[in-house]
């Protein structure tokens, strides 16, 4: 089974190669190639997951075979492999459900470039999941930023360019701070690899002056990554970037890219700084407060949106708040809840972003709420998908959204602090209520037909069974995470133990 050691490296190198290959392929060929390649990657990632679960050990790949304190490593544990599998599923589904919008939104000569960008994005997502070294983390973070900006600007209307520029500016601020944080930590510890860094930090943290310096560097790094992932108050770039891009990009950006930054942050807390040291720093409380504020403000802004994509995008900002709240609660339970929510949100949000354009299609190509009236009656399949996504977002039992809220509540109970428990419970209640208000309002809007415009003829016209397969996959995953959540939670807990 020695060959599995090479798999993490293989996913990165092959994706980089596929990216370059797509530059020379024709649009349609590039699409088939990318689809085929991503299915292949899904199999590879599943093999890594299978290996790590059955043997209970992580796969480590030292680059250039230089041993630990000097070299540069990739490492795949249960958690990374699980998330890699999920990421690949979402990628494939987003591509299948969105490729016809790619064909219409993009200039024909540029379609292959879009697939090249997607492959490069896969490479950087995989590298961020596997990386065991802070500086490689930074490099692939920048590649991820550039490719996500690329996936926005391929749709050449003025607003996407503006959205991309704002996205880039915010992300550059974030990368700058992250780089400074990494450099400061390197200056303090003399290591870039996470494990030796953690050992040095554990010794240094005994000295109060050094602890101060460590807190400062970790704080800088945290601000950087929270700007990039869109934590309140840095979430205002989200609605424009997600609303105007092509649906595949919106789905991937909201459910994978912004979550990859959070995963890197969790990994740094766990593996580079060490959870024991990190939990003594005051950063945790700030994350809790900002997370809760994000949950409420994001939902309030979603209520005021006049366009369905903007509403879903603001709701993404609120969900990022949930994840940071989980990290703020801390402990294994808090991080388990946060990571479970990353998975639940990825499955749900991609479903919503891939459904809204289909509702818009039957409503004069408009995403405005007033035009969307009765759209779910005109396209019943898309309506059903939106219903499932919305119910999960609100947190109705059976769906993944419910389980993740339950996990947050349990983590609050286990935190042992009354203030935290009350804050978490109140935040969950308020945010669920707000979620229910705006998602229910949207559902009523798209399902009611006050003007009687729907007839049998125009329903049949929009019935396209083939496009429902991706939705069935996402809905199935959503139900699976809701009903059999213990499978995912067990894997996450094992993965986190392997992290430490």
């Amino acid at each position: 089974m020695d060959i599995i050691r090479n798999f993490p490296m293989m996913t990165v190198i092959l994706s980089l190669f596929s990216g370059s290959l797509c530059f020379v392929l024709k649009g349609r060929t590039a699409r088939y190639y990318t689809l085929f390649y991503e299915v292949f990657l899904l199999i590879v990632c599943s093999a890594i997951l299978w290996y790590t679960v059955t043997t209970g050990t992580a796969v480590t790949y030292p680059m250039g075979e230089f041993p630990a304190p000097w070299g540069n490593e990739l490492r795949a544990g249960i958690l990374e492999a699980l998330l890699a599998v999920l990421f690949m599923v979402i990628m494939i589904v987003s591509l299948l459900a969105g490729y016809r919008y790619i064909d219409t939104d993009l200039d024909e000569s540029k379609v292959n470039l879009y697939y090249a960008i997607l492959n490069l994005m896969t490479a950087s997502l995989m590298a961020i999941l596997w990386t065991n070294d802070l500086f490689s983390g930074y490099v692939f973070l920048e590649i991820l930023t550039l490719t996500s900006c690329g996936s926005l600007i391929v749709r050449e209307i003025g607003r996407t360019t503006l959205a991309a520029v704002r996205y880039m500016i915010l992300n550059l601020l974030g990368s700058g701070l992250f780089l400074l944080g990494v450099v400061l930590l390197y200056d303090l510890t003399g290591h870039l690899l996470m494990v030796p860094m953690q050992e040095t930090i554990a010794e240094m943290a005994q000295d109060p002056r050094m602890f101060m310096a460590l807190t400062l560097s970790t704080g800088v790094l945290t601000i950087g990554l929270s700007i990039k992932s869109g934590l309140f108050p840095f979430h205002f770039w989200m609605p424009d970037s997600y609303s105007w891009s092509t649906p595949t990009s919106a789905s991937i950006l909201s459910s994978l890219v912004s979550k990859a930054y959070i995963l890197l942050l969790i990994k740094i807390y766990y593996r580079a700084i060490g959870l024991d040291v990190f939990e003594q720093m005051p950063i945790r409380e700030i994350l809790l407060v900002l997370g809760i504020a994000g949950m409420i403000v994001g939902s309030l802004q979603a209520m005021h949106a006049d366009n369905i994509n903007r509403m879903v995008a603001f709701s993404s900002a609120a969900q990022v708040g949930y994840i940071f709240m989980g990290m703020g609660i801390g402990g294994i339970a808090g991080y388990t809840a946060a990571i479970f929510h990353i998975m639940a949100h990825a499955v749900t949000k991609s479903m919503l972003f891939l459904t809204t354009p289909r509702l818009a299609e039957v409503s004069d190509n408009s995403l405005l709420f007033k035009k969307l009236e009765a759209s779910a009656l005109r396209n019943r399949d898309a309506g059903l998908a939106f219903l499932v996504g919305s119910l999960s977002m609100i947190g109705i039992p059976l769906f993944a959204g419910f389980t993740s809220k339950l996990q947050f509540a349990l983590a609050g109970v286990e935190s042992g602090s009354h203030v935290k428990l009350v804050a978490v419970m109140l935040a969950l209640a308020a945010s669920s209520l707000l979620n229910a208000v705006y998602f229910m309002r949207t559902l009523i809007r798209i399902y009611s037909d006050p003007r009687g415009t729907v007839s049998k003829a125009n329903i049949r016209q929009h019935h396209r069974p083939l496009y429902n397969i991706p939705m069935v996959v996402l809905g199935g995953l959503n139900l699976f995470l809701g009903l059999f959540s213990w499978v995912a939670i067990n894997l996450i807990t094992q993965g986190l133990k392997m992290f430490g």
Partner: protein
Amino acid sequence: MFENLLINYEEAAAIILFGIGFTMLLFHQNLIKKLIGMNIMDTGVFLFLASMGYIEGRKPPIIVDGVTDPARYINPVPAGLVLTGIVVSVSVTAIMLSLTIRLYKRYHTLNLDEIYTLSVHSMEDR
């Protein structure tokens, strides 16, 4: 406290540069000035890295006269990191400049606020 700043003047200068660049990138409305700010910010970090990697009186780690004692050489890793950082910064600048050109061609201004107003009024809503 100020003595420490004087001893570590390179690091202090690097952090000041970072601050200047960060503020420019955040608050200037002119896109080109924002980009200049970004470059100043990155340069600040590179200065920090480079000054931290250099130890006075030591040589670059290239063995020419058979001396293999690590105490005679400086750490080459920060220089490698600076180099990688510069490559990243150049590519980011390139893509941002190309985006700026695209926005300028469409809206004939470099001011982000004005571009925003123009783009909202042009109503390319779907």
